[in-house]
């Protein structure tokens, strides 16, 4: 490793102020710190620091996404071949399924990362900052919430929109208030509805005769129960966005996030509670078939699970206070089921519900913090302080 270190040390002056390529400083720095944790030491305050940094934090989330990614890749292949031959079994064409899936998914991932990271590097350079690792996760989340047949140029546009308008205009990772990956999906949903809705986009190159309806679409169309069994939906053997079909694979990721403490258990739990409360309420008072399905069906249909585990828990756009997180997560669950069942226009309520609560998260925090402030003022007044 000494060799690599020496090469980097030799190159370094070229990228510093007064060197040959000062305009590539952030880029060089990103690659250098990728290879080596820098030798910077503490200057002020605590003299030693925790070994965890942003790179590792974000890497953990990517690792947590791997089960969903692998399953999704395979499932795309399987769904494609299933539409051609409805008798085919899940394990009949393992290599074909996988290969077909890779051919579909890999280009989307590459486009998402190339477009997003170029913009990130550009902005970091322009601001003179280090490149923030936030996009490493966003760049993986975007492909996973895309339908398999989405045109690549649309992925590029959506990524560019979400990074520039969703994040960089506010100052970059940590300053944005909407989840960038969901914003990319929402952008496509409203700008190119034909690529993001209907029965034809959820299976790659689907045979025309085969119904490609997702469970959500079936329910919306008035079915009393989805064609796919609960077990199939739990495992994820159904059409849908690339990474969101398998509740089991997503739960594996959730276990890692909770185990390492990177994901907020408060948010995850409260999203599920919110979904259950709304689902049960519909069971009691609803009249049409959609209101009568068991609440746990909502967990395994569409993007509920993926949203609860990977999207709602984004620390930047979620509520920042612990009490706020309970309210925020609960309302996401409630709104997601409410939009699904009641709104005739959007089959998938999770995306809109999370984006909506992203907008309200600062307000929730405001009231949580305000109660702390009020308590302090009250204590002061009891001691005879004047009005504030």
């Amino acid at each position, binding site marked *: *490793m000494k060799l*690599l*270190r020496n090469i980097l040390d030799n190159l370094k002056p070229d990228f510093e102020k007064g060197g040959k390529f000062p305009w590539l400083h952030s880029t060089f720095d990103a690659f250098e*710190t990728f*290879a*080596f*944790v*820098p*030798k*910077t*030491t*503490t200057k*002020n*305050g*605590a*003299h*030693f*620091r*925790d*070994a*965890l*940094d*942003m*790179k*590792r*934090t974000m*890497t*953990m989330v990517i690792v947590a996404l791997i089960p969903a990614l692998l399953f999704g890749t395979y499932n795309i292949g399987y769904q494609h071949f299933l539409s051609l031959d409805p008798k085919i079994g899940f394990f009949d064409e393992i290599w074909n399924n996988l290969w077909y899936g890779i051919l579909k998914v890999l280009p989307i991932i590459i486009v998402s990362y190339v477009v997003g990271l170029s913009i990130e590097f550009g902005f970091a350079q322009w601001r003179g900052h*280090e490149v*923030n*690792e*936030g996009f490493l996760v966003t760049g993986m989340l975007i492909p996973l919430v895309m339908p398999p047949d989405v045109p690549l140029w649309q992925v590029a546009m959506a990524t560019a929109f979400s990074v520039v308008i969703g994040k960089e205009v506010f*100052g*970059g*990772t*940590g*300053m944005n208030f909407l989840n960038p990956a969901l914003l990319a999906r929402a952008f496509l949903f409203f700008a190119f509805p034909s690529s993001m809705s209907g029965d034809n986009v959820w299976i790659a190159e689907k045979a025309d005769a085969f119904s490609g309806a997702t469970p959500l679409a079936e329910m919306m169309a008035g079915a009393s129960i989805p064609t796919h069994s609960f077990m199939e939906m739990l495992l994820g053997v159904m059409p849908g966005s690339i990474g969101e079909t398998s509740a089991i694979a997503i739960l594996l990721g959730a276990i890692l996030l909770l185990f*390492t*403490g*990177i994901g*907020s258990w*408060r948010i995850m739990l409260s999203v599920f509670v919110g979904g259950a409360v709304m689902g049960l309420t519909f069971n009691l008072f609803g009249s049409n078939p959609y209101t009568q399905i068991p609440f746990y069906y909502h967990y395994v249909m569409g993007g509920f699970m993926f949203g609860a585990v990977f999207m709602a828990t984004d*620390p930047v756009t*979620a509520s*920042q*206070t*612990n009490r706020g*997180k309970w309210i925020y997560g609960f309302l996401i669950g409630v709104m997601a089921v409410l939009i699904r069942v009641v709104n005739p226009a959007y089959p998938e309520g999770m995306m809109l519900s999370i984006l909506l609560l992203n907008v309200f998260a600062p307000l929730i*925090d405001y009231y949580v*913090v305000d109660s*702390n*402030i009020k*308590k*302090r*003022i009250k*204590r*002061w007044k009891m*001691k005879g*302080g004047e009005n*504030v």
Partner: protein
Amino acid sequence: MSNIITVKKGFDIKIIGEAENEILTPKVESYAIKPQDYIGLIPKMMVKEGDRVKAGSPIFYAKHNEKILFTSAVSGVVQSIKRGEKRVIEEVIIIPEQTQDYEDFGKESLASMNREDVLEKLLKSGLWTLIRKRPYAIIPNPDSSPKCIIVSGFDSSPLAANYNILLRGKAAEIQLGVDVLKKLTKGNIHVNVSFDKTTCDELLKLQGVEINKFKGQHPVGNISVQIAKLDPINKGESIWYIDAQDLAIIGKLFATGRVEKDRTIALVGNEVKNPRYYSVKLGASIANIVEKNVNKENNIRYISGTVLTGKTISYDGYLGAYDNLVSVITEGDYYEFLGWVLPGFKKFSLYRTFLSGFLNLLPKQKRKPINIDTNLHGGKRALVLTGEYEKVLPLDIYPMQLIKACIIGDIDLMEQLGIYEVDAEDFALCEVIDVSKTDIQQIIRDGLELMRKELGE
């Protein structure tokens, strides 16, 4: 009378190099007073280089209040007055004489003195500066009075000195010191000790005080945490506090009429060969203490104070005004190949993304001491993770919101969020675990200083 108070949040970090139970008396060749140890102080010199001073002679006074004197710990000659940038006075160095000569402050009995007499004696002898007040952690204005006074009887920081050893044999002086404090306030005198560590009669048998036994992990020893449990500070109120060892110095003054700034300190840290206790005076040079007692010549950091809050000093630097600890740890200026990917068996982390993070789930008695260095372990980033600071901050404060209020300098918001109840040191653990590598203590300190400048004390 004693209360048991439990603090639930917090974390004890165990580090290699705790001091052994043995007190040495080193020969100290120079002493210094460092005005920058006192927050917000602008010194006005009263001596010149070459002047001879006695133990207790004034060296400088505070510009904002000329009654507040800072006095020499030893008799000797003022060797130099070191200035830094913008001619700020950094150190006043005094070379001690063979035989010590003391200023006489009189041995009048405490019973016959009133508050003014006591105040005057404390101010003249310079021992007033051993007392600090919250909010702001500054030397209190002698014309003010606090709602209570806290005697700090333990430290919960990593590698902290053991107060049972520091206070050994000082029972009478501490008791006299308590009696002095009682002249200064109508409120309670709280003596705060550790529930499981404090065993010494010097504190536990004190008369006329309220003894509070605190149970929990760091920062349970911090004054803010204790105040929050005992009697939270409201706007316009103040609380004074003093370290138990410094109280003994005050007691001694009233017993003998002399200023004897004795302080037992601990030399600790993973780079110290034989971590032990040393009996010195305030402002002692550490040169003779660390010489031949550290593992290597270069690439180590000397800190006056704890590894969480102390100041970096050189190997021949001087002990800080309120410190009873010299920590010596490894400098971490090395590159680590793919360091952020490795499983991390030996890394220090409170997060469970490293395998070593799981060791922290053990109860504190079973955790093994670890090695640390000063590497930042990553680059500075915007604040991203939330809900982490709360785990190590046992105060009814929203840390993220307060930090942001300090960054934007909104004094109304800072006040509403409880800035009066905290000090920079309370955020040390938040700073340690911060994934974004933010200098949180500096941010809080700047926020406090802004408040003080805008609103006065």
